[in-house]
């Protein structure tokens, strides 16, 4: 049942992506509206699939039965939900043309490629801390993915203004000031969730393995990304940084964050602990 729902969600995301990409070529407002509605339908069905999945998993928080791909699926769902909130606030269909295909690109390997179940230490598999950790990590990553998207859009459109060749992209975007403002706010929220994810992650790790900060690529990338976003916020507040340099930092920070997930997949999972 959950699998069918996920496939329906994926279909809705793909259709939404097609609508947004067509909108880029032909700026018909109806296409953007269709794209939004399809993403909304997709995300509702997607969360319903998670609900069904957790129900099947049994008692408690049910994280022990999750497969690796499901974390990426959750990330995709939260990113789409975040985009819809962002779009409601700032009306950014261009970001939709970025988020929707990215979601499909993440969802396809997450669900169509077989992945093994994550072996999670029994002492933490039903822990509230683990649930908060995964939730905060997913929210933080989704919000920072959106900030990354806006940063890329900012850099591309700013280049058009600077080179005195304003093109279609600039015409379809709101002002640079607004993109900068929205991107920074997302970066701040992403930083908050990332901080929470790291803090709860260290506690979960201590419960599972006894080590608060085990030396592993995942933790290393997470700390680097966190430090970079902290510097970004500091630079904005103290020195007034904005525009290109903030956008570059957001891009770099998100790339580091992606390193966390690469580390999660490539290395032996820390949470595996004694259950391994």
């Amino acid at each position: 049942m959950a699998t069918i729902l996920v496939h329906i969600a994926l279909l809705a995301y793909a259709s939404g992506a097609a609508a947004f990409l067509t909108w880029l070529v032909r700026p018909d407002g109806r296409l953007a509206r269709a794209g939004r509605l399809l993403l909304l339908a997709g995300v509702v069905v997607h969360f319903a699939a998670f609900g069904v999945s957790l129900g099947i998993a049994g008692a408690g928080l049910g994280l022990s039965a999750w497969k690796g791909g499901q974390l990426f699926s959750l990330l995709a769902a939260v990113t789409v939900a975040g985009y819809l909130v962002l779009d409601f606030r700032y009306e950014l269909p261009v970001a939709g043309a970025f988020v929707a295909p990215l979601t499909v690109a993440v969802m396809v390997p997450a669900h169509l490629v077989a992945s093994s179940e994550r072996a999670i230490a029994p002492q933490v598999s039903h822990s509230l801390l683990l649930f908060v950790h995964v939730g905060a990590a997913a929210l933080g990553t989704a919000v920072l993915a959106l900030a990354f998207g806006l940063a890329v859009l900012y850099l591309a459109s700013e280049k058009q203004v600077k080179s005195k060749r304003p093109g279609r992209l600039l015409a379809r975007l709101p002002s640079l000031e607004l993109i900068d403002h929205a991107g920074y706010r997302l970066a701040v929220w992403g930083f908050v969730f990332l901080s929470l994810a790291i803090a709860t992650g260290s506690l979960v790790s201590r419960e599972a393995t006894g080590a608060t900060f085990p030396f592993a690529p995942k933790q290393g990338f997470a700390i680097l990304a966190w430090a970079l976003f902290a510097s970004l916020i500091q630079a904005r507040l103290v020195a007034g940084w904005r525009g290109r340099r903030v956008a570059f930092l957001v891009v770099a920070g998100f790339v580091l964050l992606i390193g966390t997930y690469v580390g999660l997949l490539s290395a032996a999972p820390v949470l595996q602990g004694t259950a391994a």
Partner: protein
Amino acid sequence: MMLICVGLSHRQAPIAVRERVAVAPEQIESRLRELKALPGVREAMLLSTCNRVEIFAVAESRGAGDDLLQGLGPVAAQHAARRFEEEALRHLFRVAASLDSMVVGEAQILGQVKEAAAQAQQAGTLGPELSRALARATSAARRVRTETEIARGALSVSSVAVKLAHKLLGNLEERSVLLLGAGEMAQLAARELRSEGARELLVVNRTPQAAEELAREIGGVPSSLAELPALLERVDVAICSTAAAQAVVTRKMMVQAAKARRYRPIFLVDLTLPRNVEPTANELENVYVYDLDDLERVAAQNRDLRAAQVGRAEEIVEQELQAYLAQSRERTAVPVLARLRAHADSVARAEVERTLAALQGLDEKQQKTVQAMATAIVNKLLHAPTSRLRAEAGEGPLADAVAALFALEGEPPQPQKEAGQKSESAEEGTVLPLLRRS
């Protein structure tokens, strides 16, 4: 009944003629009533703008066109264009979609068409034919605006500057604008920025007197040239148009200003030659310099873009026009269908009554069975002719043939009262078609 359009636009007459023919807003309603009082004229709408004075009317014959034209005066008659039926309708659609405008894609014309329709409504000269045509023309215009980029981009140097300021800074309210020099184009841009809500307009000129005078004229605040470095730290947009022989705003000045601005963007618009702003200032972070050439290039790009969209816009207008014509033709076919149906029903009803009178003693159920049989025979017999007539939309020979074969000419359609029988709407049976192909 046919649609007629008479009048002139920028395509037929120079402004000297158009201004003599133009109808003042307060005279439009009385003029419309005069037009409707002309022989054979059923409906009328008058569109009077800077670029056109045109009458759209529904009349009984082409002859009304000359009478309508007289309503615009003798000067108009020498230059006016006359359009009838489909050509007139196509013109209405193209005008509303801004394809016949002097600046193709400009947004005002659709509002002007709607305003003209409202005035005709007010004067009581807008009837169902024109209303339907206007509704479809408006819908076509909206499609053109949403599905093409014909309205995208500003076309004049000053409006390109204002658009770019929007793209960089967003909402211009609470923004501060510096006007350096007194060039006309710069004043125009400054006024546009002010009308967009810019909070503050600072005026700097060579002499304090000139600055004060200009500030008074455009509602700004005068400031001295000596304060320029400080002002560049403060303002969000600077429009430069002094007659100075060398750069007034140097790169060095902007380096200092950028430090104090703490990365806040500034948009420098240079509207003179020789240039007032050192071009290398554009290399600085968050400093954007556009000179006359840059702005003109953007305007030219926008013009090219609009021109490239005209073909697609024309396609949309033609699609909408053909759809409207098809509907009109279907309406034309309806009276024949209604008459045919009424004729068949009346025959069936009479035969049922005679049969029931002959077959005494039938109970209620048996009587209903006889009635249902008669209805079924009529429906089955009429099914194929109805489909063919609808498909032909009253345009082919069948409509006339049916009318002749069944002697339907002049026979008014009867309302359908039998249960289960389809009936044509009263409106469709009586509405006069706007267009009938000759």
